[in-house]
């Protein structure tokens, strides 16, 4: 009954999965790098500025790029595939069943790593070829044939790799890196053969992304050869992306290396653009335009731990198989009566409540998927706390409604101008829960290099429902004096982030990066790396220099104000001036005594440990410390907590 189980799993699928009707295909992406190896590709650019010594040759830069992308994709797309193919090499090498072998099937094509979900060995192999001259010496030898390699062969080699290794993928992309804009200039037959093989790739659903490299003093002319090879928006019809400009080394002597410019153009293609939804947007009765939604902000989580089987030569990943069994002791029930048939029921006060399939389906049915504008409000009616999850980016789509783009544009520009948002009723797809959302306009943002940093469009911010808003707790209140606020303002004025804005690109996730670096080193059986420079840690020295004095002024003022405040109080009343909210009594204030004694520094506790007086401390103090250190005592009993802390110090 494996099938039934799987169907069930599909049914339980989380609502927010990124699926736009993939039909019969698997929602996966495969990227195959095809990197040209030739004399010119192996020549490092001349130094134009002193800043960049030891520039990489284009081939090596491309390999480094591929290496970096491979590491990145292990983090961001753990189920997607990647492979690296060199062409124009002296040697011809393919990989069959995991083993490299010389083969004449595709002359001058050299498969460095096979198209697959990368294994640690692939990462190592690619790193060695990219970074270790000794390793690459053998491989990076240009063919001496004329022509060096037949492009039709290269394309068919890629075709076969995609056909066999990544069957039924929704996205298959060939990243082609070359500086040769006219590989078969003398041979029309070879040129036509390449065009035919390119059409095969197109019909197979493979997109060719060309990353051209301009040779020193020259340009890369696509019309000579590549316009016969490349098709317009085969799969990515969502929106036309700008054509990749040819990367140049140190073009203007500004120190941007070829590697950097390649990385930036490859990064923009790193993830295939998948729409979350294609929906009608109802602006008013009988006034509908088409839009597509994209997940452009999504928390990249650490991989979950799993079980690894270590009973054999090679550790293996263990997969769980779910089976369903009676909750109570099985022997109460005669085995023969058990079926694998299951049915769902709701529990209500211990009783089962049943609904028919149609009734069940009707519960979630609040109309067809779509975005419907209910009305407009000024942005100041959208408080910062009204947030539940990452926003979804929305962009117009002309497929079903011609004229959508201009109307969408008018809406977006007007919302920006008037500082308003649209309140919308939003059903992302069939069966999805309806949500209320604020649809706000976002401006296009361009970085210093003229690259788009934020796309122009609308953003859907899912609002909390009344059911989701918690009552606010009772809290102590004491209004700061104006002069104290003034002092704080001075501090704040000194500590602005660059350009007074938050740019996510400046902050890599430190734990994510460290996690994968450690994992990589463990997988490659190398030493565990040091912790990286963590960009999220405040710049303490700078803060001290800029605002240290201001902060001590503020602290002094606070102390004085507080003393005055205490003295001004009638001596009989208790201190707390907490405001009562819709909350019931016994809120935090009563815990005051407990919390104040509960802060125990590491050093103090260590002293107690060394003196053997841990047991003299109170349970709350011990427990809090244990929780802070993530110790897990066997129970909440004092003896267990003390034992846990002792064993912590023993380490």
């Amino acid at each position, binding site marked *: 009954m494996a099938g039934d189980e799987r169907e069930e799993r599909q049914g339980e699928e989380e609502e927010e999965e990124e699926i736009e009707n993939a*039909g019969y295909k698997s929602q996966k992406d495969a990227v195959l790098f095809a990197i040209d190896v030739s004399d010119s590709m192996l020549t490092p650019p001349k130094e134009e500025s002193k800043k960049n010594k030891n520039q990489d040759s284009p081939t090596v830069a491309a390999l480094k790029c591929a290496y970096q992308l491979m590491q990145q994709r292990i983090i961001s797309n753990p189920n997607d595939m990647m492979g690296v193919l060199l062409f124009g090499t002296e040697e011809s090498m393919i990989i069959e069943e995991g083993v490299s072998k010389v083969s004449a099937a595709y002359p001058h094509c050299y498969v460095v790593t096979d198209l697959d979900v990368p294994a*640690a060995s692939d*990462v190592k192999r690619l790193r060695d070829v990219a970074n270790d001259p000794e390793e690459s010496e053998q491989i990076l030898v240009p063919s001496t044939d004329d022509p060096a390699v037949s492009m039709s062969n290269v394309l068919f080699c890629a075709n076969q790799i995609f*056909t066999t290794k990544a069957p039924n993928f929704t996205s298959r992309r060939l990243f082609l890196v070359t500086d040769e804009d006219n590989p078969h200039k003398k041979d029309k037959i070879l040129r036509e053969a390449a065009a035919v093989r390119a*059409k*095969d790739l197109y019909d197979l659903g493979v997109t060719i992304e060309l990353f051209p490299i301009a040779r020193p003093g020259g340009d890369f002319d696509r019309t000579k050869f590549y316009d*016969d090879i490349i098709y317009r928006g085969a799969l990515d019809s969502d929106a036309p*992306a700008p054509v990749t400009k040819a990367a140049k080394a140190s073009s203007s002597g500004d120190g941007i290396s070829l590697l950097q410019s390649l990385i930036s153009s490859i990064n923009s293609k790193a993830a295939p653009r998948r729409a979350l939804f294609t929906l009608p947007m109802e602006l008013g*009765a009988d006034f509908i335009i088409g839009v597509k939604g994209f997940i452009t902000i999504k*928390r990249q989580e650490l991989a979950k731990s*799993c079980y*690894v089987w*270590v009973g054999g030569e090679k*550790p293996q*990943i263990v997969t769980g198989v779910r*089976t369903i*069994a009676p*909750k109570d002791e099985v022997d109460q*029930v005669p085995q023969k009566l058990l079926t694998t048939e299951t049915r769902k*029921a709701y*529990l209500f006060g*211990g*009783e089962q409540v049943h*609904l028919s399939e149609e009734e069940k389906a009707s*519960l979630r049915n*609040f109309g067809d998927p779509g975005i419907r504008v*209910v*009305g*407009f*409000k000024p942005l100041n009616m959208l408080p*910062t706390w009204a947030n*539940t*999850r*990452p926003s979804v980016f929305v962009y117009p789509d002309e497929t079903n*409604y*011609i004229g959508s783009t*201009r109307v969408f*544009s008018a809406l977006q520009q*007007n919302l920006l101008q008037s500082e308003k948002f649209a309140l919308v009723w939003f059903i992302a797809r069939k069966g999805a829960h*309806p949500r*209320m959302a604020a649809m706000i306009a*976002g401006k296009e943002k361009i970085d210093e290099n003229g690259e788009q940093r934020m*796309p*122009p469009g609308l953003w859907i*911010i899912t609002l909390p429902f009344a059911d989701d*808003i918690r009552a606010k707790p009772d809290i102590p*209140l004491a209004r*700061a004096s104006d002069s104290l606020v003034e*002092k*704080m303002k001075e501090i704040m004025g000194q500590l602005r982030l660059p350009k*007074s804005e938050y740019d*996510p690109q400046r902050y*890599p*996730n430190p*734990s994510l990066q460290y996690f994968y670096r450690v994992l990589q080193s463990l*997988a490659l059986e190398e030493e565990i790396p040091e*912790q990286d420079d963590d960009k999220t840690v*405040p710049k303490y020295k700078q803060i*001290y220099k800029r605002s240290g004095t201001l902060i001590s002024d503020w602290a002094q003022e606070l102390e004085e104000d507080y003393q005055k405040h205490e003295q001004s109080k009638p001596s009989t009343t208790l201190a707390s001036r907490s405001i009562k909210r819709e909350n019931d009594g016994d809120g935090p204030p009563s815990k005051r005594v407990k919390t104040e004694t509960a802060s125990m520094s590491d050093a103090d506790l260590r002293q107690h440990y060394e003196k053997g007086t841990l047991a003299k401390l109170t349970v709350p103090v011990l427990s809090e410390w244990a929780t802070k250190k*993530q110790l897990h005592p066997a129970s909440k009993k004092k003896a267990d907590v003390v034992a846990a802390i002792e064993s912590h110090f023993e380490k």
Partner: protein
Amino acid sequence: MANKEATVFIVDLGSSMGKKHNGRTQTDLEWSLPVVWDRIANIIHQGRKTDQTAVIGFRTNSTNNVLASNHPDTDDYDHINVAFPLKTILGSDIADLREFFRPSQIEAGDILSAIVVAMQMITVHCRALKYKKRIVLLTNGDGAMEPDTGNDIQKQLVKEDILLSILGVDFNDFHGGFQEENKAPQKKLNEEQLCNLVLEASGTMTPVYKAVSELGIPSHRTVRAVTTYKGTLTIGHIGKFEEQSMKIEIQQWPLIMPATAQSAKTFLVQREDKEGEHAGGSAESSATLQQSAPKEGEETLLPSKRTYGKQIEDPTAPGGKIDVDKEQLEKGYVYGRTAVHIGTDDMGVVNLDTEAGLEVVGFVARDKFDRYLEMSKCSLIAALAGNEKYAMALSSFIHGLIETEQFAVARFVKKDNTPPHLVLLTPFTEDGYEALITSELPFAEDMRSYKFPPLDKVVTVGGKNLAQHRTLPSDVLMKSMSNYIDAMDLSSFGTTDTGDATEYAKMEDIYNPVVNRITQVIRYRAINPLDPIPEPYEVLTKYSKPPSALLESAESALNAVKKAGDVKKVPPRQFKRKREPEKPLSGLDIDALLSGEKRQRIDPANAIPEFKQMLEKASDVAAIEDAAKQLARIIETTIRDSVGDMGYQRAVEALGTLREELQEIEEPDIYNALAQELKTKILNGTLGGERTEMWYNIKIRKLGLLDSSVSERSKVSPEAAKDYYKVKPNA
């Protein structure tokens, strides 16, 4: 820990409750009882063991209460019937209650005595313990009432701190609103007396019509605030520069916590076997179940649990997988497709060393912050409980943010050695309440840099900026959109209780439709197992569309923007018998080149492209059929030669292509015939033995027949297409 609650429901079951009044089609009891059921269902649904509930009827035929038994000398407590004393009420009590709530044949029985019985129950049960105590009384106010006990009851209620809520059928609304005409004198007297009682004992009085109209408004019990972080908010390094650093001790609570819908549990179906043997012990107390279970004969649903078997791949084993022993497992992670085992004790090696804290990284201008970057539910931060100095310090921080029009960005580590997050700190003030709001911000890895063309200009390939283009709005469209946005303004479209203009559709007025719908239906079905499920409450769909009054006033603005926008719906896709082959950017005619090459037989290695190209060249149905058959044979070979499931995805891709292409060129029946053939071959084992997994793939990827609903020329009905997926034994 939740507060303990004791609630006694008193329901008037006198014969007049079984009669219809004031032109209603329902009896008083039928009309008003849903209000009581709603409250009872709410308690059952919350399922808290600390909630104690009792139900009393009065003006009942029989008498059953402690006071009556203890005082046989008086008839004061006659016709008061206790359904059950204070206890945790369960779903299994519903059936009994349904029987209990039936009008009697008599009018005798005293309201105030019933209240006394309820008070007695509460006092005995709760003793001096801390309880939230409540009596809910439903009555139509007919019947006799002892006038002089009211005063004692009032004193007792106050003393015991019991809240008395009265639900009165056709009681006058003393907040204005409903007033009953020609009220019977007895009822008038009773109403007045009950009213006084409630006023003096700080209880509540709600006319039933009002309670009924509020039935659809979801009630949610206040969740006690749970601290999620207790620590410091700092600027600078306290350890290094103690004097020059700011430290405020704070606490954090969740402010937004999305409610989730109740999910159905999975049960194992157990049928009685033929010999009539009964399964032991598991089917008790299923009164409601039996009535509402799907009518499929004798079956029981057993609670189930999931068990997780552990397997690894082993190509030599049947099915390609073998079970493994727990002893041979270690904890680890997957890096790409490599398993990295670490061992349970060393799992921490992958974690970054961090110290708990909320540290300010810097400040950003409010108007330069992109609101869409907030990516989590929000929390609330205030100074450490009871500490006014920290409260004062935080207050200066909050007002500093407000006055400089800035937000703060801070690094947040909740507990030592947990991953850091960057959070946005924004000020929150309301009626003297001051706090900070936190929301998580994205890291570089969380941003996907998809690029989209600008919306306010068109840049040509040559780099020219166009100001006018069909994708750009005209001035007229811009202006009319602006007018429409103004016309549909909600900022003052709502009205307050006192009739003032206010914001329409406030967040606190909008309820989660699905969550509350599911709750509504579960409760309804539990209480009325035989009735069809009701319509959704109106409040759940109220905000799904613009208010009609607003629509009316905005009509001309809408028409103007519609006209200026001139959006045209694309007619449904027309399938073409013959289509133009796609050309590369250069426009080179590849087809011509291909014709030079002889591609008559599809090369299995390049099957999909060559199949598509054959179709492009095909000039008659025979050629199409030939190509399709060739591909079908290749699919069969792929399946036959597949080691385990290795070739299945290739077969699925080819079959999917076949289906898609034949649909596109409107030859559904060629596909249907081949699909039937394939099904037979897979299931009868002629494609290399056991291929159920392949069949499963066809089912799950929906590669069945092209029926007449998706392809006009198809001779297969949608029903027949459904049948395709069924496997008949011996077929």
